[in-house]
C-alpha cells in the first residue's frame, strides 16, 4: 500500500519525473499555440526544447540598480519550491517523505511562492515588473484562504494530514465525488499559484509582461520551468487528494498516478487558453465573499458526514 519506506536515493528520480511532466505540459501548450496560429502541431510540441536551447544561450539583460541577489533568489525559487513539494507527493505506492503533516507542508511551500514571485518582480527595479509582483500578492491573498480550506477538507475526511492516509481513505470512493467544491477550488488555486491561464495577471500583457518583463536567459528559463513544474506538482497533488491516487484497474499504481496527473495537467492547460484573465482587483471581492464561504460550507458538510458516520 502507499507509504512504503523508500531508499533516499530515489529522491534523485523525483526531479526527473517532475521534469518530464513539466516538459509534457510545455509541449502540450506548444501544440495548442501552434494550432491557434495555424502551424503544424508537431512544430509546437518541439517548441519547448528549442526554447530551452535558445534561453540557455541568451545573454542576461541587465537593468539599472537591480537588486541582483533577491532577483536571482526569486528566479530560482519557483523550481526549488516545486521540487520541495514533490517530497510529499505519492507516485503510486512510493512517497519520498511521508511526514505526518504532508498537507501542511504542501501548503507552506505554496506560500513560499508568494515570496518567489514578489522577489522576481522586485529585483528588476522596473515599474512593470514591480506591478506584476504586487499583483501576484494581491491575487495570493484572494486564493490562499479558499485553498487552505480546500486542503483541509480531504484531511478531515481521512482523519489525517498524512498524504498516504488520505490516499488510502479513498479506497471505496474518490473524494472528488463528495467534495467537488473543494476540488474545484483546489484546481483554481493551482492555476493561481502557478500564475497560469486566467490567473496569469502577474505576467499579464496589460502590464507588458509583468514579472517577466525584464528577465531573460537562464533566469527566464528557470521561471518558466518553475511555473510548469508548479502546475505539474499541483496536478499530482490533486490526484492524491481527490482522485484516489494510484487506484485504478489493470495498470500498476504508479502508472495510474502519472496518467491521471497528465490528464489533469492537460485539462489545466486546455482550459487556461479559453478563459480571459481575471484581474486581482476583481477577484478579491469574489474570493472573499463568495468562494471562501462556499469552501467553508464544503468543509462543514464533510465534517458533518464524517461525524455522523463516526
Amino acid at each position: 500500500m502507499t507509504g512504503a519506506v523508500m531508499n533516499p536515493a530515489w529522491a534523485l528520480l523525483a526531479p526527473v519525473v517532475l521534469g518530464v511532466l513539466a516538459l509534457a505540459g510545455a509541449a502540450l501548450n506548444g501544440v495548442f499555440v501552434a494550432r491557434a496560429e495555424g502551424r503544424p502541431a508537431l512544430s509546437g510540441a518541439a517548441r519547448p526544447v528549442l526554447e530551452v536551447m535558445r534561453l540557455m544561450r541568451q545573454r542576461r539583460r541587465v537593468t539599472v540598480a537591480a537588486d541582483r541577489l533577491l532577483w536571482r533568489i526569486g528566479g530560482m525559487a519557483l523550481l526549488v519550491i516545486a521540487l520541495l513539494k514533490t517530497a510529499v507527493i505519492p507516485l503510486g505506492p512510493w512517497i519520498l517523505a511521508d511526514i505526518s503533516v504532508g498537507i501542511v507542508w504542501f501548503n507552506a511551500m505554496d506560500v513560499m511562492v508568494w515570496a518567489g514571485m514578489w522577489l522576481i518582480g522586485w529585483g528588476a527595479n522596473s515599474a512593470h515588473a514591480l506591478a506584476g509582483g504586487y499583483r501576484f500578492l494581491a491575487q495570493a491573498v484572494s486564493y490562499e484562504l479558499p485553498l487552505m480550506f480546500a486542503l483541509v477538507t480531504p484531511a478531515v475526511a481521512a482523519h489525517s494530514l498524512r498524504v498516504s492516509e488520505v490516499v488510502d481513505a479513498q479506497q471505496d470512493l474518490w473524494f472528488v465525488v463528495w467534495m467537488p467544491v473543494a476540488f474545484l477550488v483546489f484546481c483554481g488555486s493551482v492555476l493561481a499559484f502557478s500564475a497560469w491561464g486566467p490567473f496569469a495577471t502577474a505576467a499579464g500583457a496589460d502590464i507588458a509582461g509583468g514579472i517577466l518583463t525584464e528577465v531573460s536567459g537562464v533566469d527566464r528559463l528557470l521561471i518558466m520551468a518553475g511555473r510548469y513544474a508548479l502546475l505539474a506538482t499541483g496536478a499530482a497533488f490533486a490526484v492524491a487528494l481527490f482522485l484516489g491516487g494510484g487506484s485504478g484497474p489493470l495498470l500498476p499504481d504508479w502508472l495510474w498516478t502519472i496518467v491521471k496527473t497528465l490528464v489533469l495537467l492537460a485539462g489545466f492547460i486546455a482550459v487556461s487558453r479559453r478563459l480571459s484573465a481575471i484581474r486581482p482587483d476583481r477577484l478579491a471581492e469574489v474570493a472573499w465573499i463568495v468562494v471562501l464561504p462556499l469552501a467553508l460550507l464544503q468543509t462543514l458538510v464533510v465534517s458533518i458526514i464524517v461525524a455522523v458516520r463516526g
Partner: protein
Amino acid sequence: MLSIIVFSALAIIAVASGIAVFRVDSMARATYALAVSFVAVGVMLVMFDLDYIGVITILMMVMEMAIMAIYMIMFMGMNPALMPMSMVHNNRWSAILATGIFLLLAAGALLVPWPARSGTAAPDLTVAVGEALMGSKMLVMLTVSPILFATIVAALVLANPRGRYDRWGDNLKRVCPDDPQQGGLGK
C-alpha cells in the same frame, strides 16, 4: 552528533539573519532576512518533533513577511537599490541594554539547574495537540478565536478610511458602490 551540527548551523543562520534585519540597507532585504530567521527557527522546531507547529511557523511567517515587505516599502519609500539608511535613535543605549539582557538570560540558561525530563512525547504529536485543543484545553481555543476575530474587525476599522456610507451613499441605496477601484461584485 549530526543533530548538533545541523542545529548549530540553523542557529547561526537564525541569529545572523536576525542581525542582518537591522544592518542591511534595503527594506526588501531586511524583511526577507527576518523571514529566513523564522524559517530557520521553524526547522529547529521540526527537529524537536514539533512537525505541525514548525511547518505552520514557516507557513505563517513567510506569508507575513511577504505582506510585511509591502508595508516596509510603502512607509519607508526608498528604491530597491541599496540606499544607506540610518533610522535609529538611542542606538548606544539600546545596544548596551540588549547586550546586558542577553548576558543575563544566557547566564540564567547556563547556571539554573534545570530539572530532568518528565513524561514522554505522544507518538503522534499532531493528533495530541488537536485532541488537547478540542478536549481538555478547549478554553484556550475559545479565548483565542474571538480575540483573532476582534483583531480582524479592529484592524479593518482602524485602517479603512471609507465607511459603508461613503461606498453606498447616504441612504445606502446605491446599486453599485462608489469605489476608487471597482471590485468584482456589484453591478
